[in-house]
């Protein structure tokens, strides 16, 4: 069958190519927007993309871990919604904000842990397990309340309204700071810890990882726990942003997160990709929305069509550059 021999080492930075392509495309889009629209090419536009998508960024970080092991997590959107719901409900009942946040994060992590354990120990496909998790979390939301619950806690509103000035008329929200911290922490974990490297190894070849004595079980369950935690954190950021808890928040967000990860050059087969790519993927998605809002006359459906087309282009490029050949 196919020989595994790869001729020499010709294209060293090949693993960076998908990320570079995404970066190039992002810059091109930004430049095109700057030429076409008045007041587009400002730093604040990019910062706004961050502000509006901080929660997606955090969720996509968790998704990156899962996809790097070759899995998938469909439950993230629902866990985000559940988190907003739990937070809003507890606050409504007069809980103080910090324990609320702690509980929300704990719930997310435990949900992830449970799904990871089922996936690993009962050998059920991640797709199905996290799909059930998606129904579960969404169902819990509606069980709590079918209506939107407003949040008026002062700490939460402070998070929502605080502007952190960066000078030169540019500002960001606290959520952006949190998201950036998460990205940096996750990048550190992926690159500088054994757990992070085990994630890559498991995604590269689970069997080899087992034979090399790596803790595959801990790694696989760990990534789903991280994804659950990130979704919960994303949910908190979304509740800062929306100042409400609602069971219909973040519907379909799992697809945005998956799309961001894939556009960022991470292979769904696992083992290859970078967190920076995911950040760029989220930025690309956000910038498309910005362009469409600048266009004004363009309707929201063009966003979806564009995202679909972009996915197509990226996957084609990935196939061209990818070293892996399909069996």
């Amino acid at each position: 069958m196919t020989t595994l021999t790869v001729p020499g080492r010709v294209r060293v930075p090949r693993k960076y190519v998908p990320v570079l392509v995404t970066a190039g495309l992002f810059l091109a889009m930004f430049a095109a927007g700057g030429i076409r629209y008045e007041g587009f090419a400002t730093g604040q536009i990019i910062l706004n993309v961050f502000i509006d998508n901080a929660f997606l960024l955090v969720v996509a970080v968790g998704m990156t871990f899962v996809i790097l092991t070759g899995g998938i997590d469909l439950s993230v959107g629902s866990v985000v919604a559940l988190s907003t719901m739990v937070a809003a409900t507890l606050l409504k009942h007069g809980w103080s904000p910090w324990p609320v946040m702690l509980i929300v994060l704990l719930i997310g992590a435990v949900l992830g842990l449970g799904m990871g354990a089922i996936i690993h120990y009962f050998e059920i496909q991640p797709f199905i397990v996290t799909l059930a998790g998606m129904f579960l979390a969404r169902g819990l939301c509606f069980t709590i309340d079918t209506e939107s619950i407003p949040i008026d806690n002062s700490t939460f509103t402070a998070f929502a309204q605080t502007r952190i000035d960066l000078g030169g008329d540019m500002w960001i929200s606290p959520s952006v700071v949190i998201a950036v911290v998460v990205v940096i922490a996750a990048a550190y974990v992926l690159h500088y810890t054994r757990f992070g490297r085990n994630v890559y190894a498991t995604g590269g070849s689970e069997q080899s990882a087992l034979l090399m004595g790596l803790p595959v079980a801990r790694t696989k369950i760990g990534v789903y726990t991280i994804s659950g935690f990130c979704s919960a954190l994303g949910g908190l950021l979304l509740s800062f942003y929306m100042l409400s808890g609602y069971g219909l928040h973040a519907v379909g967000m799992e697809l945005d997160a998956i799309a961001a990860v894939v556009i960022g050059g991470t292979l769904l087969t696992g083992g290859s990709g970078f967190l920076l790519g995911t950040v760029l993927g989220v930025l690309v998605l956000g910038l498309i929305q910005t362009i469409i809002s600048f266009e004004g006359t363009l309707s929201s459906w063009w966003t979806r069509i564009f995202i679909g087309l972009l996915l197509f282009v990226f996957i084609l490029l990935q196939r061209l550059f990818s070293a892996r050949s399909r069996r």
Partner: protein
Amino acid sequence: MTAFLGPFLRHRLFWPVVILVGLLLLNLVFTDNFFHVEMKDDHLYGSLIDIFRFGAPLILVSLGMTLVIATSGIDLSVGSVVAISGALACLQISDLGNQNSVGGVLSAVGVALLLSLVLGAWNGLLVAGVGIQPIIATLILMVAGRGLAQLITQGQIITINSSPYKLIGGGYWLTVPFGIIIVIAVLALTAFLTRRLALGLLIESVGGNAEASRLAGIGSRAVIITVYTFCALCAGIAGLMISSNVSSADGNNAGLWIELDAILAVVIGGTPLSGGRFSLGGTVLGALIIQTLTTTIYSIGVPPQTTLLFKALVVTIVCLLQSPAFRAKVFHRRRRPAGAPPVAEEKVRVSA
């Protein structure tokens, strides 16, 4: 005891049937006359009929999905195809001078189904021609297709008033809801294509061992493209049914998340996501379980908001019961399989 029940317990539809029967009996406890079917105005009425009637689109989509999954693929785009097909048909009908013209409705239906076929072929080409993983290849159309549907409706809900079109999803024919007739027809067609003709054998062969199939001379590309095209056609019909039932097309919400229900129905029905052997009967059973679940929640008076919770519960139970690893670990504690290597090989296939 175990020896006697063995063949039943091992049958792959055993657990789904148990669940469905359990759900139906649960209904009987809460609803009088649950199994009662009566004739009103020459139309069949009853809870059981309703389950079939409301479950019709899901059964259709699940049938197409079964074949796709049997080739070890997956199709996430069916929900979007549902929306596109309904939107296109309604758009054309709304442009008709006389919305009740049978010819106009037929041509609208034809064009909508034709577009569904094209979309399905596109998916098939991406998977079999370009070699993109099915989940991603169809994610493209899932995302873009939803936009396409909204583009067709211009973001509005197109409302129509066409009695021929209404027949598809909401009408009756020979006392039976027309939707059920369509389902039976498509089921019969699918069974004919796969079990009477040889498509089923080739599909199972491609899904079971792709390389061996190639060496046996099977044109697996053609098989895969056919299957995705068929799946989109089923979704297209389901789209017509859904939009006809409410006499309107909503590009945004029609068929939303139906792909997930369909995949669940297939898995619950005993067709593994890894491909190979498929069971049309199991899929119908799976789709009925999901629909019955929804009906049950209404009928036993549980607030509808817990539908999803119940669904999650039932899905988890069925999937766990069907997982050999779960049964081995829970029912036969500490009985490791004698040969370690098969397990390792299993793992390879999973990660591949």
